[in-house]
């Protein structure tokens, strides 16, 4: 249900600590993601971005801290409430995580079949419409995931994440492995969906262009904690060495020059 009007936070993480055996990956992470915003999340490889995402959606246990998603503290909710929350979010995994024994269309229909009681015709049509929205041609709808290219896998995974029209979507590197044109379209698609559905997007990305064009706010993870949060322009003011290297490096400068000269 669109709740763009509803104020408050979609995700609220406080003092989160996550570790494996001896190693502490996240040490006191606190972030807020407001409803209806696109929150981009960056950090070096291995800095724990995916760990944070997987902890928020409950795949990795936390050691300390609290996590609230869509107003519910997942540590204390009942099984039924938990399922209710899960129905309201969608997750795009880094490698797609499509069910390999189902066709593309069946993959998108899978959550619909589980959670909604729809007529076969409507389910077929909506699933095909969603696949068309993410840019898949009708001839690809009956393929198996093993027959898809990397970019197509990402698109199908996005369509599946959006199958139930969730309020919140988690995207783990949605544009990695896409060509720049597709990546741009993907960003645009996320923007459109975010505006029309009042979607909240939590997105891990390395793509500077995505950060500049679609993200309302950006969080930077380094050394197991959040070192900066803010819009792209505030990122350019931050003095943390990694943030500086990332947002004021050669690639970032070239990109911002290109974006500022391009007719908008």
């Amino acid at each position, binding site marked *: 249900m669109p709740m763009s009007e509803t104020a408050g936070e979609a995700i609220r993480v406080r003092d989160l600590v996550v570790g494996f055996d001896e190693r502490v990956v996240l040490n006191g992470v606190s972030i807020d993601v407001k409803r209806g915003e696109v929150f981009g999340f960056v950090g070096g490889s291995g800095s724990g971005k995916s760990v944070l995402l997987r902890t928020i959606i409950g795949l990795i246990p936390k050691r300390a801290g609290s996590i609230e998603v869509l107003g519910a503290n997942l540590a204390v909710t009942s099984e039924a409430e938990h399922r209710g929350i899960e129905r309201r979010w969608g997750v795009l995994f880094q490698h797609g995580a499509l069910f*390999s024994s189902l066709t593309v269309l069946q993959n998108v229909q899978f959550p619909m079949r589980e959670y909604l009681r729809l007529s076969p015709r409507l389910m077929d*049509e909506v699933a095909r*419409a*969603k696949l068309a929205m993410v840019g898949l041609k*009708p001839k690809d709808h*009956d393929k198996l995931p093993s027959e898809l290219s990397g970019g197509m896998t990402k698109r199908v995974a996005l369509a599946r994440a959006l199958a*139930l029209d969730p309020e919140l979507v988690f995207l783990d590197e949605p544009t990695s492995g896409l060509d720049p044109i597709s990546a741009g379209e993907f960003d645009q698609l996320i923007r459109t969906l975010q505006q*029309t559905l009042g979607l909240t997007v939590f997105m891990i990305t390395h793509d500077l262009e995505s950060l500049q064009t679609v993200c309302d706010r950006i969080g930077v993870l380094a050394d197991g904690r959040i070192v900066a949060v803010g819009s792209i322009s505030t990122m350019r003011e931050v003095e943390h060495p990694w943030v500086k290297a990332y947002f004021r490096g050669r690639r970032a400068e070239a990109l911002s020059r290109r974006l500022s000269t391009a007719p908008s």
Partner: protein
Amino acid sequence: MVSTAPTLTRAATQGRFELEAGGSWTASYANELERLVDAAAQGTRGDALPAINLANVSAFDTYGAWLLERLRKTGAEIVNLPERYRGLFEEITSADIGAPARRPGRRGLGSRLETLGRATVAMLADLAAIAAMLGAICVSLGNLLRHPARLRPTSVVHHLDRVGWQAVPIILLITFLIGGIIAQQGIFHFRKFGADAYVVDMVGILVLREIGVLIVAIMVAGRSGSSYTAELGSMKMREEVDALRTMGLDPVEVLVLPRVIALIIALPMLTFLGSMAALYGGGLVAWFYGGMHPDIFIARLKEAISITHFKVGMIKAPFMALVIGVVACAQGLRVKGSAESLGLQTTASVVKAIFLVIVLDGLFAMFFAAIDM
């Protein structure tokens, strides 16, 4: 915001009919909404096309947008669509969903014949794949004989540990039990005509010639053959096999050969241990159940069996190992991209390996009978 059931009501405004939409046009209500929309579409047929007023819709998502589009296709005009939903609706209306898929019917004699034909071809292809794998193994074995340095001893030892050493406890246990069961059955039935002493002959010959090697081979096919198939299959799925090939390495030499060699070394050893455990089990049962002292059991065993029986069993072992290894690796490398195919090939690997082991055993029985062994 509270979501409410969707509505679609007829209202007359300014002298013309209008459909007034309200409530949540969202996924949760998609089922009711579809009924409303289809009923409305039926109702408009023949009439002057009404306008649909969406000013009062409180929530709207792709499901609602799709159903609105369905209504619009009947010719209805859309008015007062709130601005914030317009982008989504336009996105949906431009979606090209293609023609509804026609699934080819699968009925009748023709399609059954087709299924039969496909199954036959698949079976032949399977045999061909096994033969090809055997050939590939022979070729890389030949290469190995010319360049012995290309053997991968670490890999062989690693697999030997897994398929040989780690299999010892379960093999000993199973063959021990089987030996005991054969002895018990023998004593029970032979006793009726006072021939219980001959149970020693039966246990000795049966275990050494047939049961020992057969049970061990079946156990190994289930235990190690399946793991070979699953390993190679998931490597194939994740393109590891292709990576090897592009580095100029032969997957058969790197992956298959060490596994098959390990099996060929391990299976005779396991057969020996298994046969001994079965004889031990038979002896114990003869003692406690049949009242035959171990000294007598061993003395009778010496008379009953000869080294020939032992040889017959042991000669078969490496060939059975080869069959298990070839089938497991051939099936593993035939895995396609899906998880389902991995499961299918693993099942096929075990079933075919056991089947071929038994067929091979039969062929050996004829061979040994022909040469009087």
